[in-house]
C-alpha cells in the first residue's frame, strides 16, 4: 500500500487541487492531509466604483476593472492560501480595528472554502477507491470538523483509529501543544498525552499502526523553528536565524511508548525531513503552501514486510 501524506496546506486552493490529484500522480492508495487546512489572511477587495476594485495583496496594491481580471485576482488570492472578501469602502472601515468582527468573517470564509473543497473532493474521488483522510489541527477552527464530516469520501481520523488496507491502522491527532498564538486546538502537554493515550487504546496491532500526530516530537529534528522574541519576531544573530526545537513532549513520549510503524507529522513548515526516534521512523513533509508548492511524503507499507520506504516529494 502506498500512502501520500501532506500537511499544513492552509487554505491554498492550488495545494488542495494538487492533493486531490496526488493519488494519480504518485500512484497512491491512500492520501492524507495531516491538519491545518485553514488560512490566515483575508484580503479585502474594495469596490471603489461600480466595476472598479482595489486590493492590497502580498503587499502590492492591485487594481482591476473587469470581471475576468477580478476572477483572476480571486484565484491568485486563493492559490496562496488567503481568502478574498468583496466589500465597499464603508463596510471595509467597519472592520478596521474590530478583531471580533474580523474573526467572525474569518469563520464564515473558512467554512465556505472548506465546503467548496469537500464538494470538489466528493466529485473527484467518488468511485475511485482511494481512501482520503483530512483532519483539522491546532490552527483550524472546530467548525471545520462538521464540514469534513459532511463529505462522502473524506474520513476524519482526528482522535480515532481507522482501519486501513492490509491490517494497518491510522491514528490521528490534530491537537497540539501550546503555541504563542493560542490556536483553537492548542492544549497542555498532559492533556495532549491523555488524548493520544485514549486513542491508542483502540489500536489492535501497534506494529501496524501509523500515527498521524500533527505536532512533531520534541527534539526530533522535525521540530526546528525560529526562536521568537517577545514580539513574535524571529531572533537573528550575526549568522542567521536562531533555531530551536518546539515539538511536543507528549508526541515524543507516545512515539517512544507505542512504537508505531511510522509517525507522520506537520506543524513546523520549515523542518521537513525523515528521522529516527528510538527506532521508529518519523517524518515531516514541511510546507510551502504560500507558493502553491505541495510538499509531501510517500510511504510504502507491506502487510508482510512492514515499512518499505519513506520518501519526501515536492509536488
Amino acid at each position, binding site marked *: 500500500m502506498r500512502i501520500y501524506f501532506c500537511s499544513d496546506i492552509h487554505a491554498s486552493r*492550488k495545494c488542495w*487541487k494538487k492533493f486531490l*490529484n496526488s493519488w494519480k*500522480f*504518485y500512484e497512491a492508495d491512500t492520501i492524507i492531509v495531516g491538519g491545518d487546512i485553514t488560512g*490566515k*489572511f*483575508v*484580503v479585502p477587495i*474594495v469596490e*471603489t*466604483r461600480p466595476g472598479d476594485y*482595489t*486590493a*492590497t*495583496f*502580498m*503587499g*502590492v*496594491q492591485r487594481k482591476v476593472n473587469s470581471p475576468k481580471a477580478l476572477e483572476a485576482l480571486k484565484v491568485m488570492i486563493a*492559490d*496562496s492560501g488567503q481568502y478574498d472578501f468583496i466589500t465597499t*469602502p464603508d463596510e*471595509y472601515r467597519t*472592520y478596521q480595528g474590530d478583531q471580533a468582527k*474580523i*474573526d467572525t*468573517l*474569518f469563520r464564515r470564509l473558512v467554512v465556505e472554502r472548506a465546503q467548496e473543497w469537500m464538494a470538489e473532493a466528493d466529485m*473527484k474521488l467518488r468511485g475511485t477507491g482511494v481512501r482520503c483522510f483530512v483532519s483539522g489541527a491546532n490552527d483550524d477552527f472546530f467548525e471545520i470538523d462538521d464540514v469534513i464530516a459532511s463529505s462522502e469520501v473524506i474520513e476524519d481520523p482526528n482522535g480515532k483509529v481507522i482501519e486501513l488496507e492490509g491490517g494497518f491502522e491510522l491514528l490521528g491527532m490534530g491537537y497540539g501543544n501550546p*503555541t504563542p*498564538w493560542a*490556536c483553537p486546538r492548542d492544549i497542555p502537554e498532559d492533556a495532549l498525552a491523555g488524548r493520544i493515550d485514549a486513542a491508542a487504546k483502540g489500536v489492535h496491532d501497534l506494529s501496524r499502526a501509523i500515527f498521524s500526530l500533527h505536532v512533531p516530537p520534541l527534539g*526530533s529534528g522535525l521540530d526546528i523553528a525560529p526562536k521568537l522574541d517577545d*514580539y*513574535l*519576531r*524571529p531572533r*537573528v*544573530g*550575526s*549568522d*542567521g*536565524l*536562531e*533555531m*530551536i526545537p518546539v515539538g511536543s513532549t507528549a508526541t515524543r513520549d507516545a512515539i517512544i511508548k507505542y512504537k508505531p510503524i511510522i509517525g507522520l507529522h506537520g506543524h513546523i*513548515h*520549515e523542518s*521537513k525531513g*525523515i528521522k529516527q526516534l528510538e527506532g521508529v521512523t518519523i517524518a515531516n513533509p514541511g510546507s*510551502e503552501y*504560500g*507558493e502553491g*508548492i505541495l510538499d509531501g511524503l510517500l510511504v510504502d507499507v507491506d502487510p508482510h514486510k512492514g515499512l518499505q*520506504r519513506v*520518501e*519526501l516529494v*515536492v*509536488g
Partner: protein
Amino acid sequence: MATEMPTVTGVFTRASSGLVRQVRTQDVVFYGVSQIALSYIVFVVLAWGLYPGASMPIAALIATVGGLAMGVCYAMFATLYPRTGGEYVYLSRTLSPVVGFVVSFSFAFWEAFYAGVSGAFLSLYSISPFLAGLGLQMKSQALLNASTWFNHGWGIFLGGSAAIVLVIWLQIRGAGVYFRWQRWAAYAAFASIAITIVVLLLAATGALDFKSNFDSIAGAGSYNKIVAQGVKAGLAPSAPFNLGNTINFMIWPAFSIWFAVASTSFSGEIKNVQRSQLLGISGAVVLMGIAFIALTWLYQAAFGSSFLLTTAVQGVPVQAPPYVPFFTAVAGGQPILTILMSVWVVFIAVFVIGTTLIYASRATLAWSIDGVAPEWLGNVSERYHSPHYALLVWGVVAEIFLALFAFTTLLGPISGFLGLAISFIVVSIWAIFYPFVRKVQFDNSAIAWRVGGFPLMSLLGIIATIIVGYGFWRLAVDGSFSTNLGFADGGAAVGVIFAAIWFFAFKAYRKRQGVDINRRYAEIPIE
C-alpha cells in the same frame, strides 16, 4: 453614498493567526555586515598598487552599486520563496533541480574553501600584524618572533586550525551557544571599528603623527626613505586616475561587499512583509560600502598613498608585515590602542569561518533531505540540534585548504571568489528572465513591481548581470595578486562539473533504490 476610499487597504488576520512576524530589518543589516567581513580590507589595500591609477574609494563605490542591484535580486527571490536554503530552494524549484544543486554545491564548496583560507587570513592578516605592532611598541622580541611565526607555514596552519576547531566545536554545541559567543564578539568588533576610525581620522588630520610614530620604531627618516625607494622603483607616487583600472580593481572590495546576500538563506513565512530582506541587504551593502570607501580613503590620508604602494611590495624595515592593521597600530602609538583596534580584525576573521561553515552545513542538510546527498550528512545531533556530521566533513575540507594555503603556493586570497561568483551570476541572470518565464508566480508575488511596465526585478537583474558579469570575467582573466591562479579557474570549473556528476550519480543511485529524484521536484498537475 459613495465615500472616499481608505488610503491603505491592508489584509485582515485572525486573532490566533499562528503567524510569525517579520525578521527585524536591523537584524538582517547586522547579519549582512558580519558576512561582508570588513577585515578583508587588508588585502584590498595590498592589491591596490597592481592597478595603477585605480581609485580604491571609487572601486568600492562601483562594487557597492553592483552589490546593491544583485542583493535586491536575491532579496526578491527570498520574498518569492521565503524558505531556509537560499538559492538552492528557488533555483531548484523555478529553474532546474540540477542548476539549483550545482550552484548550491559550488557555493558551499567554496565557502568551505574560505573556512580554511580564512583561518590562514586570521594568522596572516590579523594576528601577525597585531603582535608585530604590540611587539614593536613594547619592545618585545618574543612578540615580534611570534608575529613572524604566524606569518609562515606552521604558524598560519596552527593559528587557522585553532580557529576552525573552535568554531566547529561551538557550532556542534548548538546554534544557541555559537550565537551567544558571536553576538558578544560582534559587539566588541563594532566598538573596535569605531575606535579605529577615530584613530585614523586623527592620523589623517595630523592630530596623531603616523610618520613620526613610524620613524620612532623603524629609525629616524625611515618613512621618507621608504617613499623615496618607492619613487625610485616606480611604485610611487600613485599614477593619475585611471577609470579602466578602477573598474578592474572593483573585484577586490566586491569580494567582501557582495556577500551580504547570504541573509536570503533564512526568511519567514509572511511574504507581504518580507521587505526586511530588501531593506536589510541593501542596508548592509550600503553601510559596508561606505565603510570601505571611508577606510580606504582614511588609510591613504593617514599613511600616505606612496607609503602604502611601496610597502605593499617592498615591506617595512622592521620585523612586521606591511599590512594596514599594523600601520593603524603604529598610528595609535599606544599598546592599549593597538589591542583595542585589533579586536575587530581578529574577531571578524574568526567568525567569518563560522559564517562559511554554517552556509555549507545548511546546504548539505537541504541536499540530504532532497535525496541528493547521503542521509547521514543530514543527521542532526539530538542533544545539540546541530548538523554535526556535515560540520565535521566541511571542517576537514577546510583544514585541507588551510594546509594548501599554508604550505604551498597553489592558492591566493581570492582564489575562491570565482567559484562563489557562479551563484551571483546565475541568480542575476535568472532575475532578468524570471518575471517572464514564471509570469504567474511573479504577478502573484509581493515583488510584482514594475517601472514603466517593465519588471523591476528584470531591470535590477540587467544591472547586476552587467556589473557582476564583468567582475566574473575579470576574476577569470585577472592576473594580479593571484586572483586567477590555475587553481581558481580550474577549481571553479571542476567544482561545477563535479557537482553535476554528483547530482546525476545520486539520481542514478536513488533510482536503483526505487526512488525517482525527478518526482521529488515534479509539480503535480491541476485538473
